[in-house]
């Protein structure tokens, strides 16, 4: 009886531990929308945090060709006063409600393709947008 109880309790606690740790990790519940401006051979993607948790953002900016192939793009990332040059991938930590950041791509030498920006967090995709050239 005692051994059955120990086995049951151990199994129960292990299963519970797995579930609780999943919920403690929890989903990042955030809304982000992207506003695109295509002007003077610059394409600016303004991303706005419009509600929910602060989130660590993993971003990808790629050029997608008509045949379906893609390559990472050079871009300028502007967050507040800070500017960074990025190549394809970037990461932004603790992006909070009300904050904005911009990804600026120079489209001078680009044609017949699509610029694709994808923003995701640890658990899922937050927002994505494409701009045809």
């Amino acid at each position, binding site marked *: 009886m005692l051994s*059955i*109880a120990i086995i049951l309790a151990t199994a129960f606690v292990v299963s519970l531990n797995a579930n609780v740790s999943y919920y403690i990790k929890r989903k990042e519940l955030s*809304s982000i929308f992207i506003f695109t401006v295509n002007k003077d051979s610059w394409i600016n993607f*303004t991303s706005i945090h419009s*509600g929910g948790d602060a989130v660590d953002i993993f971003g990808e900016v790629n050029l997608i060709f008509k045949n379906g192939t893609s390559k990472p793009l050079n871009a300028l990332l502007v967050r507040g006063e800070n500017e960074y040059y990025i190549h394809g991938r970037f990461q932004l930590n603790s992006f909070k409600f009300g904050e904005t950041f911009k990804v600026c791509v120079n489209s001078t030498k680009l044609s017949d393709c699509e610029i694709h920006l994808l923003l995701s967090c640890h658990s899922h995709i937050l927002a994505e947008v494409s701009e045809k050239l």
Partner: protein
Amino acid sequence: MKSTLLAVSVKGVSTVVAISIILAAIVTASFAIQAFIVPELERERAYLHSQDILRSFEELYSKGRCVISLSHSGVPFFPPISSTGQVGYDPQIGVTISAFNVTELKEVEKQLDSQDEFEVRSTSEAYFLCQNASDSLKVNCTFSKDAEKVTFLITSELLKHDNTTLVRFQLRVIRNSNFNVYNYTVFQGDSFSLNLMNPIYNVTSFIKEASKVYYKANSPNCFLILKYLETEHKNTIFSVRGAIIYETSGFPLSYAATPWGLTALEAGNSSLAAFPKILWVNNTLTVNLYNFTWNMGTIGGTGAVSLHLLTTSSFVSLKSSFSRLYLNFTSASPSLKNSYLQLANILKSSKPENVKVSVQQGDSWVMVSFEGKGNLDLVISNVKVVLG
């Protein structure tokens, strides 16, 4: 006998210990569920509900009606069963648009009896009228557009027929050195009129698009009557107010349907939650605003509420150029300021080259100024929010 008693006692102890272990596991489990899993599930449901509210508000703008679910159901078997929410109205949130040197088109009617030259636009009617028909008339009426011209030359002479005196009018329509001649005969002293936009002259569309008219007549009894659009320059101010606000007890995120679009509110801060209704489209500032009025007080509790937009009066519409334009966003609390600044930055980054943008701000207001020649396409819908 002794060993049997001991065995029963050990068996009893093991049962008690086993039950205690199972009870401890159940208590631990229930504590863990209550402490970690239920709040997270609750939070996730509240967040998904907030996204439903966002979609409902978007429908309010696009379809003029929406159903807002005030509460969301909680996690089954765990309190609270459902949250409560409320929809209210803030009359203090608004924007004032001051536009300088806007051009307004007004339809005017002009009657000319001597010599004049003036600018016209979209001419809709052009009549030549002669009272008391007589001879020796000489009239020149010329419509021009860029280098092209259409001239109507009207002359008259007397004709004797039996005992009757007639006046014969000769109309010569000249375009690009080609001309056609038309003759009209009336009794002397009668009135005579010509519709210069009559399709038989083949110049109707040219007159409509003409930018200048020259008229000269040697008789005070003859007139040119024109109906056309005249451009008037003026300064104008539009004021738009009122926002519908949804708040819930279960989640810190709330939404405001403002005159210029959806705004999210959280912990004294704000953010644009959807594309704003003030945007640069090429070189034109496109402004689609809603002037919300509300006579219902605050609607709160659980369940759902259906909102409907009723157009109260004719909407305001203006398409014009401007030399300066100010957008002054105001509210009673400073929490909306961040969303004003986000909108200002979007307008700044998408502005045309010849327009300068500057942003001024106070505690609870932001003013965006545009200096330079720009175009404005403004529509203000005056709407009353009612229960559907």
